[in-house]
């Protein structure tokens, strides 16, 4: 090469054909040394695919990659690692039954006598890294027992352990609390400034793009739409580039609805999967026509609360009443029949079957009822398909036909499918967890408007989200959960995002204490 270049990675005309889907269509991208480069795009735009190609996980159908000006063949992650590329994947790549230290050193373990794993060394290296970057982890803990926030940290430590100079972060903040996201950004800035690393970050949160990146590239339908300097961009511009039309960040219209208590929870106590107390004396009530947001750092009992209320987890003490009917450890079937629908936090694990077709997924819960089951036995395929096709249309689920396996859908469309199904039951109560996790802006807008519409029609909605913006945007009332206990209850507008964080982390006691001492 005759000229010096800042260009670290150049992707030229990369295409990737999956059976039936052209995920990348002649995509080109330049990454400069020392920059933070954001990539945005709707669900299924092909961002992850592109990154997986750079990381050697997918073989491109055509196209070339240049590294420091030289053409390279990246045939496996090992090649990428050897080029100094590290990647944090959209889905965790952690071994649940292994310890944190084992996960971090996986692939390049420190050794004793060349063949034995050196656990001590692995632990001390983990501790060292953890200190250097301020990412606290317990090296001895098994990953399966850790919260997603911690798991995200481990993923980043893994990459740093391998000494990567280029870090690809695919939606690292999707499951983080604002505070955790902020911490992560600090680490990222430090990595770039102090250590000269290069970062590629994918996110659906446009504020984050604006806050952290130097440049941003936008993808749509497998094509690269363009790259711009972040200072020249704003949310509106990016959103338009992403969806190819104007996106209106409308203020959501909330109607006043007469209050009627439909769900009241009294003194619930329950345990988590590790048999530790996850909910302790939780009591609250929910009215028709309101959205009650549950704010909390993940792992503080939100998941367990939702599971208890939907019959997926047993409670030890307490009870709740649905429109006056008392519930203690009833089955999900019985609870559904009382009029509770549920959008679960983990759509892949709980909310759908990826092997089953879309129409089969849409059928769950009403498969034994008329007119979809004639006399409760014979499936009425015609009626079932009609309903499924109607929902696909209403909820703008992007699929050629309802006869395809749900696993073929992109994450955002899967989420829309789950929401479509649960909303279609028209229950008086909806329990909605993480409705927009990993979902693109266009879809977020759509889902939010659907939730509000439900509320305006008089449904009582319990909303659990790790995304504080979402909580504040949708809720009428907010309660905070910390270590299984309710630490505060507020009407929306009563408290700032910043202050609520103190309730979510149990530091409100300090606040109260400080307040007291001030007096």
């Amino acid at each position, binding site marked *: 090469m005759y000229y010096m270049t800042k260009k670290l990675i150049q992707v030229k005309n990369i295409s990737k054909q999956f059976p039936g889907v052209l995920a990348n269509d002649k995509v080109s991208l330049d990454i400069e040394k020392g920059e933070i480069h954001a990539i945005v795009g709707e669900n299924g735009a092909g961002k992850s695919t592109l990154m997986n190609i750079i990381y050697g996980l997918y073989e491109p*159908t055509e196209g070339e990659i240049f590294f420091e000006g030289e053409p390279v063949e990246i045939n496996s992650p090992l090649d990428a690692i050897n080029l100094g590329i590290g990647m944090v994947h959209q889905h965790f790549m952690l071994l649940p039954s292994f310890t944190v230290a084992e996960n971090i050193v996986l692939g390049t373990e420190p050794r004793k006598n060349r063949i034995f794993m050196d656990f001590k060394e692995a632990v001390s290296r983990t501790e060292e890294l953890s200190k250097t970057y301020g990412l606290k982890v317990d090296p001895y803990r098994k990953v399966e027992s850790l919260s997603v926030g911690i798991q995200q940290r481990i993923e980043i430590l893994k990459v740093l352990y391998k000494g990567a100079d280029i870090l690809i972060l695919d939606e690292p903040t999707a499951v983080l609390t604002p505070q955790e996201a902020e911490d992560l950004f600090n680490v990222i800035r430090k990595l770039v400034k102090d250590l000269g690393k290069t970062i590629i970050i994918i996110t659906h949160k446009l504020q984050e793009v604006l806050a952290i990146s130097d440049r941003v590239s936008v993808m749509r339908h497998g094509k690269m739409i363009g790259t711009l300097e972040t200072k020249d961009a704003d949310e509106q511009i990016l959103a338009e580039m992403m969806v190819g039309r104007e996106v209106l960040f409308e203020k959501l219209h909330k109607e006043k609805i007469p209050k009627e208590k439909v769900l009241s929870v009294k003194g619930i106590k329950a345990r988590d999967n590790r048999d530790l107390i996850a909910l302790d004396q939780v009591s609250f009530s929910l009215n028709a026509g309101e959205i009650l947001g549950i704010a909390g750092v993940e792992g503080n009992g939100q998941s367990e609360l939702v599971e208890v209320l939907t019959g997926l987890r047993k409670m030890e003490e307490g009870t709740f009443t649905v429109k006056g009917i008392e519930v203690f450890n009833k*089955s999900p079937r019985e609870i559904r029949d009382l009029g509770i629908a549920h959008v679960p936090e983990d759509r892949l694990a709980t909310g759908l079957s990826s092997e089953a077709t879309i129409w089969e997924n849409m059928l769950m819960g009403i498969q034994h009822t008329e007119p979809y*089951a004639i006399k409760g*036995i014979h*499936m009425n395929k015609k009626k079932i398909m009609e309903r499924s096709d109607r929902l696909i249309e209403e909820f703008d689920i992007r699929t050629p036909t309802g*006869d395809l396996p749900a696993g073929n859908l992109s994450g955002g469309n899967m989420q829309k499918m789950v929401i479509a199904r649960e909303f279609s039951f028209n229950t008086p109560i909806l329990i909605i967890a993480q409705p927009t996790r990993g979902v693109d802006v266009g879809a977020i807008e759509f889902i939010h408007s659907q939730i509000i519409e439900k509320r305006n029609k008089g449904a009582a909605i319990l909303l659990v989200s790790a995304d504080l913006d979402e909580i504040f945007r949708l809720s009428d009332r907010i309660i905070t959960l910390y270590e299984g206990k309710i630490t505060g209850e507020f009407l929306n507008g009563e408290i700032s995002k910043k202050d609520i964080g103190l309730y979510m982390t149990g530091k409100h006691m300090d606040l109260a204490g400080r307040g007291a001492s001030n007096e």
Partner: protein
Amino acid sequence: MNSKLFKKDLEYIVSLVLSISASLLIGALIMMANGRSPAVGYGALLKGAFGSKYNMANTFAKTVPLVLTGLATAISFRSGIFNIGGEGQLYLGAFAAAYVGITFTTLPKGIGIILAIIAGALVGGLYAFVPGLLKVKYKIDEVITTIMLNTVAVFFTSYLVNYPFATTRGKLNGTEIIADQFHLSRLIRLSTLNTSIFFMGFIALLIYYLMEKTSTGYDFKLVGQNSLFARFGGINDRRQMIIAMVLSGALCGLAGVFEVLGVHYRFLQNISPGYAWDGMLVALIVKNNPIGVIIMSIFFGALKTGSISMENATSIPSELVLVIQSIIILFIAGEAGFKEKFKEWNAGRKVKQKAGERNA
């Protein structure tokens, strides 16, 4: 929309046919290496399986236990619980039928046969209920318990027919012959094909309907695909699993019943040469599709009758047939993989071609 799906089915059938052809070709090579003529060999095989009414009857006679145990496998595997204990359930079901047939000798024909069928299904189902319960209640792996229970059933029935229920006529390790009115009539002279094939057809239809057309079939399938999702959606996944297991056991029990009522007219110590295993294989090959089970059972039945004729007619040893059969199975199992590899290779070639065009 539907043409797309049809295309997929067609593709599957084409690649299945290709796989079978490829393995038959390998079989032909093996025969040639052994100095035999594949034309003569396969000719004899085909003739043996379908050459006459009698041969066809034999082929179909072989499908009865295969279809029933195959459907049993399909139903349990589809529901996410693995019943490997079909052999044991079959033995106990067969014994139960024989017991009815030698005890209630005064019952009229119809009632007697129905009673024997119910008894066999019940006993088979109950024997499957135990591992099902252990699985659902205590999370004890059903694969290991059902394998163990197979051996237990074989030994237990062996005890029964050698001591309390041993026949007093002839040196035979079996029960007495069941009363005349329990015998299902034979359909073709010299062949063991009997009216149980109609029962089988009826049961297969019923199971097909249950699995593919009813809400309960949907429940089974979704429990098998993602039991958490099923529970979330209001299905009692544990109960469903136990029901699937019991149903599966009952079908295996029925396979045993028909061996007694239609073929041997008594319980014999080694009544099954491993029908349940063959049935499992059949179901796995067609990915637990009930219609597929029937078609594949006929194929396997034909292979079995045909290979016997081939051995007798050409002196190609039957072991060689086993070798060829295992290769056929392997190729069918690899069908999807071969297809994918071929597509990848083809795609790669196209891209290279394109690149070549660009360069030129």
